[in-house]
């Protein structure tokens, strides 16, 4: 790298014309690497001698830790086993009618008859399909992990609010906790806490507390100064200040945290079931999917989706009423409802021996949805097989493969219908060069650079790119975007992937993630633009987006695998269906909240609707749209790990294998690798946003 950096000064001191001066050197280096790749071994493959057995070290540390601290953690397991068994047993023992009554009653109290009806219908569905017991086991885990996560999160949040130093320590830890894939820490939890439902509990608390911390800090800090001062002037002591002024004023934000924590907890409870032995609803989905009983797994998947929606609406409703403060009722009417509900519940329990229907759902009322669904799916697939195959093959052959292994290998009679001739290569190189030259002529250096780089990567394939070339491009790009700091952190991130021997798998992850993120971003922004222009479309998409976001992402795998079998393409589809939503939302929000004066000014100048969109709204919404891209990347990478369940071959799979083979080091190294990719991508996005903002502030382009 040194000869590249040597002749360029810091970007901030460079005049605009020299800003891209370093790129010719980088491209030259990349081409050199590509050409020399065949003859120089260490270019093609990062030399094994320079790798470190990091995974083994992790294993050693973990072994030592488990050896010495296992009793302590096992004690915690015992401690938690009791309340957990109680809640489990309670939920199993309670007659279904009592459970439905209580939850629907709470729903009525929080959101009114609509949600109560929805809750009742959802639970009736669970009963009808005969999945009551596993659903209650999952709910029991959620019911105990949410209060724990809320307590832990609130405590840490208050600590972070009180002490800025604590906040500086907490924030990066939260970032790591949220980006390291959950599978990666399932195994150490399993080793420490022993096999059983406590693993799901601990994992779900660990996964679910960060949003609580963030929202607590945010809420407590954003209390308006007027309210704080009026509390002080009323003579509040420190303690009164917190509990009677700050906390109630921040309650809405804190309850939003409870909502996010609940959803994260449910999602983790579902994922944690892959370790098995919990007899819960996630396991139901997974085991039926492995047996290719898609009807059954779809039926169970819908149960999860319904539970998620009920929990989401319930906790979100809490946050809203906490703020709106309905009308003020007297204490009698306030508690009258609760008393009536409790009385009705007890009545149901007491009546159970007399009316057995209240206790156990009669067998005659079960409906077997799985078998008709199965046959329907089968016949659908049989009928549309050619169409499905065509969709899959064209995406795989013409988009995924070339990017992955390069046009030089992807183009074959089997895929593209012809073999790659030398003259094809010549034409390809010529057109890339022509494109770059045209861009240069037009004064668009950045575009020229990108044309050449993408041209090279597409021809060689990301998986076959010499590692040195990738390092050169990314580090130099990081230096351009964010200066020395970003360059160094990028270099360190890539070094970790190289030294631990995760490079090849990481490139596959980057391949899949890039494809998925590009597709999600494209789909999301396009739909978002349409939604910002058409209210009906926006209203149509809102419930779809909400559903896709509230559902544990795991459920999204079912339909894709059903239609397209196991493989990269199914993974791609599952990731897109999860990750397009933030791009959609941020785009729509950004476009709809462009300053009204700007729009009015442009309209009065005679802009057509088209011009208004492309020359006023989109440029003004760009920062928001980029925020959406950032989120899309995060969602995409999070989903990448879960997609490993449907047979990808990237780092995500490595994490999963590490878990199932009991190899902590292997899974953990791969997990950190994924977190590193996510964090680096995030840094690049942030650097872009900073550049964009300072460009506008400085008034240069």
């Amino acid at each position, binding site marked *: 790298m040194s000869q590249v950096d040597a002749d360029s000064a810091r970007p901030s001191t460079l005049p605009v014309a020299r800003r891209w001066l370093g790129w010719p050197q980088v491209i030259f280096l990349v081409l050199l690497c590509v050409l020399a790749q065949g003859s120089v071994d260490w270019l093609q493959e990062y030399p094994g001698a320079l790798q470190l057995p990091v995974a083994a070290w992790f294993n050693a540390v973990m072994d030592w830790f488990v050896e010495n601290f296992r009793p302590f953690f096992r004690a915690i397991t015992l401690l938690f086993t009791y309340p957990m068994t109680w809640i489990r047993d309670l939920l199993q023992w309670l007659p279904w009618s009592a459970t439905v009554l209580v939850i629907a009653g709470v729903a009525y109290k929080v959101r009114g008859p609509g949600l109560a009806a929805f809750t009742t219908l959802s639970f009736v569905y669970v009963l009808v399909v005969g999945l009551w017991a596993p659903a209650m086991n999952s709910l029991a885990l959620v019911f105990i992990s949410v209060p724990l996560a809320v307590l832990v999160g609130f405590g840490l949040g208050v600590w972070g609010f009180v002490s800025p130093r604590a906040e500086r320590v907490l924030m990066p830890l939260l970032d790591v906790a949220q980006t390291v894939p959950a599978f990666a820490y399932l195994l150490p939890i399993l080793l420490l806490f022993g096999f059983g439902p406590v693993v799901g509990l601990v994992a779900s608390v660990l996964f679910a507390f960060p949003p609580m911390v963030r929202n607590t800090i945010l809420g407590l800090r954003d209390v308006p100064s007027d*309210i704080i*001062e009026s509390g002080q*002037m009323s003579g*509040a002591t420190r303690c009164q200040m917190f509990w009677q002024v700050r906390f*109630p004023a921040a309650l809405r934000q804190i309850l939003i945290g409870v909502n996010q924590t609940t959803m994260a907890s449910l999602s983790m409870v579902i994922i944690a079931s892959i370790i098995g032995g919990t007899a819960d609803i996630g396991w139901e989905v997974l085991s039926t999917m492995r047996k290719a009983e898609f009807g059954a797994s779809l039926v169970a998947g819908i149960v999860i989706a319904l539970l998620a929606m009920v929990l989401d609406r319930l906790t979100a409703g809490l946050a809203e009423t906490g*703020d709106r*403060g309905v*009308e003020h009722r007297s204490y009698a009417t306030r508690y009258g409802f609760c008393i009536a509900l409790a009385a009705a519940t007890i009545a149901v329990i007491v009546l159970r021996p007399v009316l057995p229907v209240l206790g156990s759902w009669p067998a005659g009322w079960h409906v077997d949805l799985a078998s008709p669904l199965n046959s329907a799916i089968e016949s659908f697939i049989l009928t549309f097989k050619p169409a499905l195959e065509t969709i899959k093959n064209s995406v795989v052959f013409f988009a995924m493969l070339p990017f992955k292994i390069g046009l030089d290998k992807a183009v074959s009679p089997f895929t593209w219908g012809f073999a790659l001739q030398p003259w094809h290569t010549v034409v390809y190189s010529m057109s890339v060069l022509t494109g770059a030259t045209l861009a240069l002529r037009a004064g668009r250096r950045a575009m020229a650079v990108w044309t050449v780089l993408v041209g090279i990567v597409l021809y060689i394939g990301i998986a076959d790119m010499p590692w040195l070339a990738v390092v050169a491009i990314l580090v130099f790009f990081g230096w351009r975007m964010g200066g020395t700091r970003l360059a160094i952190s990028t270099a360190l991130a890539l070094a970790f992937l190289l030294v631990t021997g995760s490079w090849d798998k990481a490139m596959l992850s980057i391949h899949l993630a890039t494809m998925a993120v590009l597709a999600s971003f494209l789909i999301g922004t396009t739909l978002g633009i349409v939604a910002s222009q058409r209210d009906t479309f926006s209203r149509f998409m809102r419930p779809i987006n909400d559903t896709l976001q509230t559902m544990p992402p795991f459920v999204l795998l079912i339909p894709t695998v059903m239609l397209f079998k196991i493989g990269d393409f199914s993974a791609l589809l599952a990731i897109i269906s999860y990750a397009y939503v933030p791009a959609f939302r941020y785009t729509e929000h950004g476009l709809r909240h462009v300053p009204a004066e700007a729009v009015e000014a442009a309209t009065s100048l005679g802009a057509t609707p088209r011009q208004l969109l492309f020359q006023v709204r989109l440029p003004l919404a760009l920062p928001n749209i980029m925020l959406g891209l950032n989120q899309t990347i995060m969602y995409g990478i999070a989903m990448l790990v879960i997609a490993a369940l449907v047979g990808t071959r990237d780092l995500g799979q490595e994490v999963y294998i590490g878990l199932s083979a009991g190899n902590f080091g292997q899974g953990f190294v791969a997990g950190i690798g994924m977190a590193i990719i996510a964090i680096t991508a995030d840094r690049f996005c942030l650097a872009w946003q900073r550049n964009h903002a300072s460009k506008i502030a400085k008034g240069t382009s």
Partner: protein
Amino acid sequence: MTDQAPASTTAAVKLSCRNLWKVYGPRPEYYFDTLGYAIDVPDLAERIRREAHVPAAIDVSFDVHVGETFVIMGLSGSGKSTVARCLSRLVDASHGEVMLDGEDLLAMSPKALIDVRRHKMGMVFQNFGLMPHLTVIENIAFPLKLQGIPLAERRQKADRVIELVGLEGREDAFPGHLSGGQQQRVGIARSLVVEPDVWFLDEPFSALDPLIRKQMQDEFLRIQRVLRKSIVFITHDFLEALRIADRMAIMRDGKVVQIGTPTELILNPADDYVARFTSDVPRIRLLKAAACAVPAQGDLSALPAVSADEMAEDLIAQLAKNPDGLAARDGAGAVLGKITPASLITALAALGSEADIVTS
């Protein structure tokens, strides 16, 4: 800057601040550790600015007397809110002293300060500062709740002030359901519920519509006529200051430019800055009924009575209806004199000449 105490404020000093400084920046205390040195004010302010600190209040001194409405008027950034916050110790002053009933507020322990705030101070905020999760009545009783007063007594005291601000019937509404004017009534009621001696109002009506603002000013004057609190009132609206002030201080860039009664300020502006505010004010705004009254023989009880405090402006309509004149009475009801159209015009004409300053 001499603090001229007009005739009406010979009452005891309630709250006073002496040489108050507030400096924002990395090391504000650095400028005030010169024990025993006399501080050269313009010099120090200049040096503070040069060294990237912000002097928000510069050597501010004034007294607020018992029962007096003292207005601090200044444009945004003039330091008026900072001074008010230093007086209530929401902000700790960098230098100087604040005396409340002869006690040094700045030297007070946190515990003693809480006690003072609970019993002696009330404050009204520009953006109301209401607790969104409490009803109107709970908001008003909030300071009492903090003191641990039992519910029944809280309720009783809150009911009394709720009547005073005219919010009966809205006790159980939440602040979010009230208009801005109503919310500020809640803020006023809350600040009065502990029956404070000193009442701070920080731009209480600035967030309201002009019409509501006028109405609230009237309400405020009515309440003050009943309660006679010692008031520190912050505003950026010169006309508002004129309407309600017994005395006022004009601030600019952290410094007090002039202190005096509204009439003094208008007739003798200390500099061009003050003059720019005062030049547009119609002189009749300064005239009170007492100044227009002339001694009259005979029985005036047949004439309609007006308060001596009433503004001459407001008498015109009444004079039109009663061309024979009005009887000006003081607070105790004693007749001061008779007001006729001619006496009003004479008083107004006299107002222009500096030799004849009319104070009320």
